[in-house]
């Protein structure tokens, strides 16, 4: 018996069917009256979402910007430090324990401190939290990628009298790029989560996280859920964009290239 691939219509239809079934169960649960007050039915959430759409977009833009700034800053820092660590052993020795320490710090734990440090009107603390969260996976993956160069390739570049900068640009970096982008993909989700959760701990009174906390506390369940939907959309966009980037580069760099 061989494993057969599902026909394409079924591969689309199956998850849709599961989703519809879930929605149906949700409606039935709320209609039965035994659901908690904070769980409205999907229609109510959608209604609020449509009604407050501009508000949600505005909040999502703020949270999304914080996450993006954090992701970019964390990535730049991580790549720069990984390049240093890959080049000079001592730097590697100095950064390895630091990064290990950073990886185990519950980043959310320092958020109230950062928010207070940079003031109630600054988004900086939130972006910083996202940057710290993004830093670790990018650093670890990039450093591994920078060590993928094979001895024969290194010999070739040395024998061809390539300069250090040429070797980095034409050999080390292309070898590391797929790893770097895997790191960025992992970091993207972390940056969004961190930027959003950071809003629960003070700072300016805007953004998706703040809105969810506010409306949840005041009992406007459907609206709180609509903002959660906004957070999901940010996460999805970050994930999709970074995944596509990762795939595009992998294809360009020869992995899994279709025969010409």
């Amino acid at each position, binding site marked *: 018996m061989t494993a057969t691939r599902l026909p394409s219509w079924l591969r689309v239809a199956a998850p849709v069917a599961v989703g519809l079934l879930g929605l149906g169960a949700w409606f039935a649960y709320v209609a039965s009256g035994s659901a908690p007050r904070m769980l409205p039915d999907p229609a109510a959430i959608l209604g609020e979402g449509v009604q407050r759409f501009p508000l949600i977009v505005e909040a999502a833009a703020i949270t999304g910007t914080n996450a993006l700034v954090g992701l970019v800053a964390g990535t730049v820092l991580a790549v720069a430090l990984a390049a240093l660590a890959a080049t000079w052993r001592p730097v590697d020795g100095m950064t390895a324990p630091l990064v290990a320490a950073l990886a185990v710090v519950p980043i959310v734990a320092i958020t109230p401190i950062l928010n207070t440090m940079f003031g109630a009107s600054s988004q900086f603390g939130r972006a910083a939290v996202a940057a710290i969260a993004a830093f670790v996976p990018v650093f670890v993956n990039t450093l591994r990628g920078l060590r993928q160069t*094979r001895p*024969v*390739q290194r*010999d*070739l*570049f*040395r*024998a*061809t*009298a*390539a300069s250090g900068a*040429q070797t980095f640009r*034409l*050999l080390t970096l*292309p070898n590391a790029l797929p790893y770097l982008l895997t790191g960025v993909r992992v970091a993207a989700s972390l940056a969004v989560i961190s930027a959003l959760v950071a809003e629960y701990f003070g700072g300016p009174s805007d953004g998706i996280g703040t809105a969810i906390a506010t409306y949840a506390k005041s009992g406007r369940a459907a609206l709180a859920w609509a903002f959660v939907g906004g957070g999901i959309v940010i996460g999805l966009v970050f994930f999709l964009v970074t995944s596509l980037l990762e795939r595009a580069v992998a294809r*360009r*760099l*020869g*992995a899994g*290239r279709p*025969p*010409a």
Partner: protein
Amino acid sequence: MTAPAVHAAGVGKVFPSTGGEVTALTGVDLDVAAGEFVSLIGPSGCGKSTLLRLIADLDTPSAGDLAIFGKAARQARIDQDYGIAFQQAGLLPWRTVAANIALPLELHRWSRARRDARVAELAELVGLSEFVGRYPDQLSGGMQQRVAIARSLAASPQLLLMDEPFGALDEMTRERLQTELARIAAETGAAVVFVTHSIPEAVFLSRPGRPRDEALRESPEYFTRVTAVREALHGAPLQRANER
């Protein structure tokens, strides 16, 4: 009077290791004249690759003098007096065949137009003209090795260093590439230092003065020489195959 392509006198190499020092080479004397084809032959671990790496300045000798065209090995490397090919093709998978061949030219800042012209010439020379747009993972092992050879020839060096370039290939491909290499070496007039552990390969390639073609492989003289080299190799770790 031109300087010999390679001049080595009393060259030795000792590698430091955790369990004490490992002596790879001692007292190697070697002269390779311009345009000469020399094979370094011997069993695995006898130091033939080490000697090639010293000539290429990928390692530095612990003793003795080494000159490439009368210069220090380091200077010869920087001046790109030699081209090199290894057992592994070592192609960059994200570059096309053409871009792989052009790599040394790109590193030395040739203009795009000159580069393209030279790549077309080289692809023709190694019989890969139809494949310049392909990527390495779309090529067979033999074709990848031809790309590596074309790359080693890119800057028209007067010395080719080859470290078992056909070692990982099947016998048929290997023989075809040997014939091609002999032709290329003759056409370009470059000296070749060729590391191999195959006696027939060394005998076929390092045959001074005569054309090397398929007929040679079946001549009685060829077998006599293979036998001679085999006998000479007993007890001698490193021998020049074309020494009489």
